[in-house]
Every structure is written in structure tokens, then in C-alpha cells.
């Protein structure tokens, strides 16, 4: 656990509900900056398809595993679409010390749910949008580059001087729907591999906690509207979890248990 935390340069642990719990929460939140269900195609037309870079609004939070079923029921009611299963092997690659003007990194994301064989996507997270306007938003707006790649991508980038920094397996589900923006809600457990690439032997990094991420693609022209749509949707999830910018830890919601019990007995939420 410490090794993984050190490897991502974690250095600010909040004392909240025990050191291990804090480590777990902060680790999940920090690491989630780098995750999205990358094979979603957000079609901005030909220009974006060619450029492959776009902005993304994102908030995240954590939820106890025992409340995930209630969250799923709530999301099913809110989104009006079926959930999609998620099983993603994520490899973080970093440049070797002598390569490039500074350290560069990206993720290779293998979607293990795809048939007949897994698909690969390369995802590069750029910087967060800066300025008073962006900082006042309750969501993080960041630039993202994505490209589908064929299965020899890992071998290629190893040959080019990129090394595996760490790898994770994310298992869960997602909902993808339109509500003011194209929004994706992802709920997943984050698992580490005890042996290199051994996805079948992965164990949870934080047993008992799962990561929830809400993302929506945006452009430089419409990110405020997209951010507003995301925030508006997140209010519906407030009984179960708090969602905030990556890096801003809010912990679990104290009333989540009672809210979850309510959703389980009602069997659903509000259909939009």
C-alpha cells in the first residue's frame, strides 16, 4: 500500500477516520484523476476526431461498498439507461530519466469487457484549466488526449523508453446518458496486482470503499454549461455521496446508510 502511495508521490494525508482509512480515501481520489472509461467516443465531429484532444469536466467521490447497490438503483432511476459493466486494466507508463525534456506519462487502458478480444486506448491527461473562472467552478476542467491503439502498444512504448510505473484493475459499472451534457457516471473498485499483469489475482486497494467519478466532455466554448450540468446532476447523488474536484477529499457521507436503506426499500429514484 505504502509503495503504491509513494509511487504516485502522495504526501498529504488527512487524519479523518484512522490513518489507513485516510490513506485509502486519498489514494483513491488522487489515483482517480487518471481514470475514465476511455473507450467512450464523445463525438465533436471531424475536427475533434482528428485532433483527439478535448476538455473534460470531472468530479469524484467515494462510497462504501455496502451502499453501491443503492447507488446503482438511484442511478438506474435517474439516468434511464442500462448500466454497462466495467473491467479495465490500466497501466501507467512514465518516460525513462534520460528521455524528453521532462518526465512524461500516460495511461494504456485495456478494456477487458470487449469481445472477441480486449481493446486498448492510450490516454494522456493534460493540465487543469486555470484562471479565476475555472477555479470558481465546482468541477475540474482538464485537457485530455485519447487514441485507440492496437495491442502491441505496450511493447512499442517500452521500446521507445517508457517504463511501467504502476498498474491497476478497475471493476464496476457505468452509466452514460445525456442530461444537459453527455455525462458518464462510473462506480468501481480499484484493485492492485500482486504479480505483473496478473489481473485474475488482483486484490482491492481499499476494501470496503469504491470510487465514483462523474465526467463530461467539453470544449473551450461550453465548459461552464457542461460544468453546470454535471453539478446539477450531482445534487441528486448527495444523499449517498459527496462529489468534488479531484484532490479535494470530502470523505463518506454520514447519512449514506440511512439514504441507502431508503433507496433499497423504495427500489428507485426520480426518473429525469
Amino acid at each position: 500500500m505504502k509503495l503504491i502511495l509513494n509511487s504516485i508521490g502522495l504526501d498529504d494525508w488527512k487524519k479523518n477516520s484512522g490513518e489507513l482509512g485516510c490513506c485509502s480515501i486519498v489514494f483513491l481520489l488522487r489515483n482517480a484523476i487518471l481514470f475514465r472509461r476511455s473507450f467512450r467516443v464523445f463525438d465533436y465531429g471531424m475536427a475533434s476526431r482528428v485532433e483527439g484532444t478535448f476538455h473534460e469536466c470531472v468530479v469524484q467521490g467515494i462510497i462504501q461498498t455496502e451502499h453501491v447497490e443503492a447507488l446503482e438503483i438511484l442511478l438506474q432511476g435517474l439516468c434511464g439507461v442500462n448500466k454497462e459493466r466495467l473491467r479495465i486494466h490500466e497501466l501507467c507508463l512514465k518516460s525513462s530519466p534520460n528521455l524528453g525534456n521532462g518526465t512524461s506519462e500516460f495511461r494504456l487502458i485495456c478494456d477487458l469487457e470487449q469481445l472477441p478480444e480486449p481493446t486498448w486506448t492510450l490516454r494522456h491527461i493534460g493540465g487543469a484549466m486555470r484562471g479565476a473562472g475555472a477555479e470558481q467552478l465546482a468541477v475540474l476542467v482538464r485537457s485530455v488526449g485519447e487514441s485507440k491503439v492496437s495491442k502491441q502498444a505496450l511493447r512499442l512504448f517500452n521500446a521507445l523508453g517508457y517504463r511501467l510505473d504502476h498498474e491497476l484493475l478497475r471493476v464496476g459499472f457505468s452509466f452514460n446518458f445525456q442530461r444537459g451534457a453527455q455525462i458518464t457516471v462510473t462506480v468501481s473498485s480499484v484493485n492492485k496486482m500482486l504479480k505483473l499483469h496478473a489481473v485474475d489475482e488482483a486484490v482491492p486497494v481499499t476494501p470496503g470503499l469504491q470510487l465514483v467519478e462523474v465526467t463530461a466532455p467539453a470544449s473551450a466554448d461550453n465548459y461552464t454549461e457542461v460544468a453546470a450540468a454535471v453539478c446539477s446532476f450531482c445534487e441528486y447523488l448527495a444523499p449517498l455521496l459527496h462529489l468534488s474536484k479531484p484532490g479535494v477529499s470530502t470523505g463518506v457521507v454520514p447519512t449514506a446508510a440511512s439514504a441507502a436503506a431508503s433507496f433499497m426499500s423504495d427500489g428507485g429514484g426520480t426518473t429525469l
Partner: protein
Amino acid sequence: MPTKWVLHWHPNAGSTANSQILNDISQCIESINGVRDGRWKAVVTFYKPIVRDQAMVAEFPRDFLGISIPDEPYKYYFVVRGQRIIVEADVSIQAIMDKLQSYKLRVMLNFEGLQYRLGDFRVRVGKVFPSHSESMRGIVMEVEYLPISSIEQSKQIMKEFLEIVQETLSNKSLPGQFTHTEPNFAEYGLSDQYTSQHAAIQYSTVMAQLIASSQLAQAGRN
């Protein structure tokens, strides 16, 4: 995808590829009832690593290529020939590579010319030139047999078609000939069914041959 051979013009000793030879080749294709049906373009980019210590540059591959081919305008291909690696990506990968700032363009070569339809065959003939200059560095020809995707099954008919083309070219007494070297696709993990990845590998092979021819010609002049 239909099978394809990509050939390069191997000039005789003491001669180089030039526009006149390219025109003569085009006329030969037209003389065997080739119907012109458009233009085509491919681009091969040589990358080099950005390193902080130049002494360490040998750690990184010297034969790292990026290739765009006419049949897949929204795809981009990476090849590292020495390690037999081929990766297909979206064309957006180029923007991501720019952002990573670990490799930069060393030289970019354009392949451009006319394409012809001859029955079940499509033939593309074109010149090779650097992006910053119009000076011709070579001539290439693509021969595609449209009905078949199996490389093995199409070998015989491709060979026979090429013999017809070569015979027509020989009537012009051109100082050179087209040569074809089939890469070992299995070493790249590819099957007998032809794909755009096979095409990218063929372009990388042709590049290596053009460089070798150019170096031989240079050695001869020296």
C-alpha cells in the same frame, strides 16, 4: 482489405530516379489500359528521441517511423523495424506524441502520385520527396489485387501481373526496375489476411530500401 504489394524503383548503377522516368512509368500503365482515377498520398515520418544526454541516444531506437497511408485517412501507424513492432492508432496519436515531448520529427517523406484501375487491379505510382523540398528521392508503385485478401493466395496472380508491367516497362529501356521484397509479416504478429498494418510495414520496408539504394549511389559517386 485487398492484398497489396509496395515496390520501389531500383535505379541502375549510375542513374537516379527522376520525373522523366516517373512519366514513362505512368505512360506504360496507361498503355496497358490503366484508367486514371485519382491521386494518392502517403507520408512516412522518421522520429528521433529528445534526450538530455546525447551519449545515451543509442538507448533508443533509430528506426522509429510514423506512417499514414491513403486507404486509412483517420489512422496512423508506428513501426519499429528492428524490433518488428507495428501499432495502429487513431490519427490523434500524433497530437498526443507532440504533448509528450519525448520524440520529435527528424525527417518527413511524402509519397504522391496518380492511381489507376486495371480490371481487378489498382495501381498507384508516385514519387518520393522530403516535405521541405521537391527534390525526388525515389519512385514507388503499389499494386493491389482487389478480389483477394489472402497474401498467399494472391501471390501467383500478383507475380504474373507484375511480369506484364515489367515487360511493358522494359520496352522503354528505362535505367532500372521495380523490386519487391515481401516483409516477414509473421514476425510482426500479423496473419495471412492483408490489413492496413501490412501496408504500413511494407512502406517501412520500402523506406529502408530507398535509404540503402541512396547510400549505395552516394558511395558509388564518392
